[in-house]
């Protein structure tokens, strides 16, 4: 089932195209990622999906769960936001009302979508448990939880409202790698178990490669390359995608497979041209540096 369909989307501000996506289809249980640098238009495309681009000149077709977003009245859009597509941002704490306990916040959101009383409480507790948070967190205020907990709460809010799509803008960029790994694990599980679809905006290609099924590489407001993540990120066709991949800092490490006798010597040469190139660069620098020590 296609939850999001985009055709010939163009967003213009002051006559200039700041974001253009010719084609995007997101089905239940899938993840599509928009990658690129700041200013590439990836967040603007995400906001277009939620009908959040007041004042911009938006053309094309965006259909979310059967609703034509660009032509729908605000009342319909409000029902879509939250109940169909939940937005998860980089700093969730900034988006949560600081004067409200998380439980109150979630109950109010549920009430707005017609779920009240004991049913709301039960849904809130279930959703929180689904993202591996202690229900006790519902009694806390936003400043009393960590960044990772706040991010998982934002996902729980989406689950409680029954959203089928999570639109996430750099959801883990502000988090420690270990916490990021937990968020990724939660999202992967929800995709498998609930058929949750994920529209991910990120500049972290390594993260995207481990989460996304499909990738759109954006630059200066346009899509330069699109396709399955496994192909685009391992055998990139566009020079810009290759540049992005070569810029990802590489880390020496042995294979993560269980290898008790590994000597940890030469790093795995990598499977993609970008990796090989980047490693060669760091390798030669390292050799040049050594005599200085």
């Amino acid at each position, binding site marked *: 089932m296609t939850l999001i369909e985009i055709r010939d989307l163009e967003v213009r501000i002051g006559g200039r195209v700041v974001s253009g996506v010719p084609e995007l289809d997101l089905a239940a249980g899938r993840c599509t990622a928009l990658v690129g640098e700041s200013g590439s238009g990836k967040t603007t495309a995400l906001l277009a999906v939620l009908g959040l681009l007041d004042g911009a000149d938006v053309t094309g077709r965006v259909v979310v769960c059967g609703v034509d977003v660009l032509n729908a009245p605000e009342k319909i859009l409000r029902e879509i936001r939250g109940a169909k597509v939940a937005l998860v941002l980089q700093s969730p704490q900034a988006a949560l009302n600081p004067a409200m306990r998380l439980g109150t916040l979630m109950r109010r959101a549920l009430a707005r979508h017609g779920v009240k009383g004991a049913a709301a409480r039960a849904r809130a507790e279930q959703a929180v448990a689904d993202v591996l948070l202690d229900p006790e967190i519902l009694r806390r205020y936003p400043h009393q939880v960590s960044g990772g907990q706040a991010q998982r709460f934002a996902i729980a809010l989406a689950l409680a409202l029954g959203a089928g799509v999570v639109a996430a803008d750099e959801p883990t960029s502000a988090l*420690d*790698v270990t916490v990021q790994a937990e968020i990724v694990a939660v999202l*992967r599980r929800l995709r498998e178990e609930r058929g949750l679809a994920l529209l991910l905006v990120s500049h972290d290609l390594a993260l995207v490669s481990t989460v996304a099924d499909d990738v759109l590489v954006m630059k200066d407001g346009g899509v330069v390359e699109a396709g399955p993540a496994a192909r685009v990120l391992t055998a990139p066709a566009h020079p810009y995608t290759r540049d992005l991949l070569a*810029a990802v800092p590489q880390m020496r490490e042995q294979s993560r497979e269980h290898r008790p006798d590994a000597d940890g010597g030469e790093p795995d040469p990598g499977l993609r041209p970008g990796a090989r190139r980047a490693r060669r660069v760091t390798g030669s620098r390292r050799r040049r540096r050594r005599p200085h020590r």
Partner: protein
Amino acid sequence: MPVVHDVSLAVDAGGAGLIGESGSGKTTLARALLGLLRPRAGRITYGTADVTRLRRAERAGFRAAVQPVFQDGGEALNPRMRIGTSIAEGLTGRLRAAERRAAVAELMAGVGLDPALAGRRPHELSGGQRQRAVIARALAVRPRVLVLDEPTSALDVTVQARILDLLERLRGEHGLAYLLITHNLAVVDRLCGTSHVMFAGRVVESGPTGDLLTRPAHPYTLALRDAVPRVGGPPPAASGRTEASPAPSGCPFRRRCPLAVSRCREEAPRPRSLEGRRVACHRAEEVLGGRRG
């Protein structure tokens, strides 16, 4: 409550990396090293001078020799001051206006900034340009040591790669030593010969960066490394236990450790030497042997 304790480390020409999650004490340690905090116990020396007991005259020399470069270049620059003026503040000696301009232009060119940008204010530059300006200003006082606190975390991956290239080049040109604080293990791998992994205010593992990344001896180092996503790699490994607070007795990491045994509850591990590194873990031999839990 001490927030950083029992830390011993040296910063030399090979570069020292401090790795750990937020709250592990990395930045506190850096602030102490910069002389911005007075430790309750222990010694910090620069050359032969005790940083905490510098006389007024010595302090000026120390402050020039050890320069900080923080994550957000925008915050470190006076928003009302032109970039060139900010950089010129660090220049010493009596200089005529023309000499001053020439020195600023040379510093800017040295960090890859167009000297024509000297008249701009910080908000008129991109994040990468601001970070270059901060580095140029730090270099104006001819430092010996740069304390780099997450110098590239706020930048796009391609910009990050260029800043890392710059830091690598400047090290050779200016004979600099780096203390690099980051949660990005790949960045440490590029710039630091030695690394120190901090957990809950203690250094739990120290040693050559390559050894730490290819064959961690502490379960926390292993968890940090395996949480890093890689292009085309498996999903990052999540422990699901990052919320557990550090244990107040015994080994502080034991609540998150897949290898914890009763000894870890009863006895805090002391740092000991093992295969070319210092590690504070009762079961380090097993971690080195490839055991995960």
